């Protein structure tokens, strides 16, 4: 039988606010346990939450970024359950009236086609703390657990998709699209290793052509693009095998173990909590007037999809180039600055994706860590465009920039060209003199050349070009050298 996979994602994005969603404590990552938790985060008796406006603004930004409806009123609810790292005995979240309504995200598939994935809604909530089992079980006796509440109260935006994805690849592409949007908007650092982005994956299978959904399993807390693909691949195979062997998929929560590369049952539907949601009486409904939403809309940056469209339509880049160069905000900004400095979009695209990307890959660096900044690279390309240096010298200049030579602005390339004497020689007198010398030094090769049929000569001229370029230490204009050589050898 042919099976179809149905996937929906709940993506948790940690918002890049400086303080927590309901308290003034810092959200910085990596501090000593419980040093970034105030009375409110500890859930001490009598404390009350106060909503962080920055978290609201970020959620609205996201909503506008996916063309979602922004309801005028949203409400925080309490989701009640007991867990040691949940200090108040409830998580403040938005169950019934989320801050972001229905919207959509466009994903680009490998074959270059695009697909629209609907977002059901996105809501704000607070993160819980962290239980530290390993730290205490050995040092302080068996079975002890410590609680770190630094993360408690960190603002999360939970983005819930419709079950629109049909493969692990689509799910990963969707997650990447969300990642790209939130980082473009600057509302999250998107750092998956630090838990700034993680997702719950709902997976089911159904016979191809069947309309009703199969029973789904939810895989909790998957925290990398790769793991999403692998967890889904495993889960799909497990469910199909199970059904084909006459079994039934049960609705349950599963965990993905990346080491074993498998998902494992965590709890079944019967064990599911009754969260007893009700509106949080300590927080007023959030009312967003049109002026506020418009104000945020005006300040939105250009998002990946718009950038892609502009790169192809206005700059004449290929769809592939446009997709790569708009993949992250940092990459797009880098490219656009290079283009601005040198004035040639195609050359800028070639250099950023060619020489620069290659070097970054070799060193395993992101564009943000590039030792060559956009102004320097733009300056270098300008010198290629105005024929000050040839392509070969340009690579030398690039290497020097990479090594930190030449200074930090767009004149860095000029300084290197000057210092290394890489300026292209276009003075035909000087080139002629070098050619004459090479011809004089190569009587055998000249004779061979001149004995050859005219159609073979094109290949043989390479030797002479090489010698002249060598003599010029790479600075001679290759086109000029070629033309002059031809003239002289053919004449003789």
């Amino acid at each position, binding site marked *: 039988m042919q099976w179809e996979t149905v996937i929906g994602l709940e993506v948790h994005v940690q918002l890049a606010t400086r303080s927590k969603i309901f308290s003034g404590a810092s959200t910085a990552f990596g501090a000593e346990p419980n040093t970034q938790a105030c009375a409110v985060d500890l859930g001490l008796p009598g404390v009350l939450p106060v909503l962080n406006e920055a978290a609201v603004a970020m959620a609205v930004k996201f909503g506008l970024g996916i063309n979602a409806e922004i309801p005028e009123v949203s409400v925080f609810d309490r989701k009640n359950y007991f867990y040691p790292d949940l200090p108040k005995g409830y998580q403040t979240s938005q169950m019934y009236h989320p801050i972001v309504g229905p919207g959509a995200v466009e994903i680009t598939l490998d074959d270059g086609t695009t697909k629209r994935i609907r977002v059901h809604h996105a809501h704000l909530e607070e993160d819980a703390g962290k239980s530290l089992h390993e730290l205490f079980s050995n040092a302080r006796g068996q079975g002890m657990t410590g609680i770190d509440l630094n993360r408690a109260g960190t603002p999360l935006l939970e983005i819930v998709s419709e079950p629109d994805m049909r493969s692990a690849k689509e799910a990963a592409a969707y997650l990447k699209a969300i990642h790209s949007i939130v980082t473009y908007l600057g509302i999250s650092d998107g750092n998956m290793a630090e838990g700034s982005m993680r997702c719950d994956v709902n997976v089911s299978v159904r016979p191809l052509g069947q309309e009703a959904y199969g029973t789904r399993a939810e895989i909790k807390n998957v925290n990398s693009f790769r793991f999403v693909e692998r967890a889904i691949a495993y889960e799909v195979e497990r469910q199909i095998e199970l059904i084909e062997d006459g079994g039934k998929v049960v609705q349950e929560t599963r965990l993905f173990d990346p080491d074993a590369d498998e998902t494992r049952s965590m709890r079944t539907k019967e064990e599911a909590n009754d969260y007893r949601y009700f509106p949080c*009486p300590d927080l007023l409904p959030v009312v967003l007037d049109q002026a506020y939403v418009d104000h945020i809309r005006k300040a939105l940056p250009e998002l990946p999809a718009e950038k892609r469209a502009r790169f192809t339509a206005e700059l004449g880049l290929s769809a592939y180039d446009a997709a790569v160069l708009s993949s992250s905000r940092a990459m797009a900004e880098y490219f656009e600055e290079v283009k601005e400095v040198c004035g040639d979009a195609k050359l800028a695209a070639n250099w950023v994706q060619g020489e620069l990307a290659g070097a970054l890959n070799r060193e395993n660096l992101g564009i943000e860590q590039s030792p060559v900044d956009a102004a320097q690279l733009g300056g270098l390309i300008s010198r290629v465009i105005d024929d000050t240096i040839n392509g070969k010298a340009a690579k030398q200049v690039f290497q020097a920039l990479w090594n930190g030579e030449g200074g930090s602005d767009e004149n860095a390339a000029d300084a290197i060209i000057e210092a290394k004497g890489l300026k292209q020689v276009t003075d035909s007198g000087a080139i002629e003199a070098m050619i004459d010398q090479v011809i004089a030094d190569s009587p055998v090769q000249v004779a061979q050349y001149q004995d050859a049929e005219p159609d073979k000569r094109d290949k043989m001229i390479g030797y002479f070009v090489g010698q002249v370029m060598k003599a010029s230490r790479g600075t001679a204009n290759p086109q000029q050298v070629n033309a002059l050589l031809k003239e002289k050898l053919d004449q003789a």
Partner: protein
Amino acid sequence: MHDKTLTQLAAGLAAGDYSSREITQSLLSRIDRLDGELNSFISVTREHALAAASAADDARAKGNAGPLAGLPLALKDIFCTQGIKTTAGSRMLDNFIAPYNATVVDKLNASGMISLGKTNMDEFAMGSSNENSYYGPVKNPWDLSAVPGGSSGGSAAAVAAGLVPAALGTDTGGSIRQPAAFCGITGLKPTYGRVSRYGMIAYASSLDQAGPMARTAEDCALLLGAIAGHDVHDSTSVARGVPDYTAELGESLSGLKIGLPKEYFGDGLAPEVEAAVREAVKVFESFGACVREVSLPHTHYAIPAYYVIAPAEASSNLSRFDGVRFGHRCDNPTDLIDLYKRSRAEGFGDEVKRRILIGTHTLSEGFFDAYYKKAQQIRRLIRQDFLDAFEDVDVLMGPASPTPAFDLGANKDPVSMYLQDIYTIAINLAGIPGISVPAGLVGGRPVGLQILGPHFAESQLLNVAHQFQQATDWHQRRPAFAEENA
């Protein structure tokens, strides 16, 4: 010293008749002598109080003292006090010392007022008799065999017995007005949101409100002025200027339109209480006020709605008492669930457990719509009843409680206990302010007249109460317990 009002003490301090330290010393020794019998305090903070009194005296000597500086009061043990035990009347918090002050405590400190201690209360403010405290029941100074009312019974008894001239209470369903009535003092529940709830241990967040308890409306006005106002730490506190609540005291009541809700004069109201209340209303008529009967048609839904909403919020608010981070933890838990179960079983008393269970049930899947949602709909109707009534009248008047203080141990059935709050509970659901003033004695036990006003009408309520106190002396009557021990 013990018989003076805040206003009188302030005048004496200003005139140099005595120092704040002398007042404090005198009242502390009175507490030492009498509270063994009353049990109105959980903690007496002698050292803090004396230090603060000296500081207030110094400030006064330098001319830096505000009008309230050096005046004593007591705090219901539901307000967090930095470095001082805050128990909420529960074994659960018997060992809890808050690392911060409630906003009202900060405000009182800033005004220079001096807390002599933390008063006894029904556990987590759940009760109408003050018999639900882990620290034992409080006695009513008017009759030591009677309850002082709850849940701010400790505050009410301490004021009535002359241990302090004033105290802070909290009122979720009548917990300031009913004990004020039972103990013959004046107690004001302000408009919801008028006073910050930050640092006040939550019972039912959408109903809880802190307020002043004192001998006179004038003193309540002073105290409310010190604690009211918007707080950036409490989103539900209202951003609205704080008026001078003493400014309107003295306005004429001629032409005041008083409504008597007929639902507050029906079955279950003790005839002597009704007589006292009607007598009090006549006093207002003598001022030129006009009185008419009005109707609050949804009144009989108030108690059922309250006993859905308040326990629902309480079940959630009390989840944090799990034995993990603070408060009571059972010995040698075998695992996490055992830790939760035994810590909570040992830490909470019966009434608290009863309400947690009710709340957990009404919020649970499948029951939420039938109970919680319905109760919220009723709440809106009740609120609308009041808004409609205030279209026609300026204030409403009625009894604060259907009976005077009942005997300790007399109300064994929880539901009959819940009915004690029949005249106070709807006010919390509507969010409006209400004040109880002494208006008579029945069998030697005080009766309270309750006066209700529209949202933020505290100034008017205080003036109405003050005018009554200018014309009557019920608020000056003292229980024999206080007189004999003068």
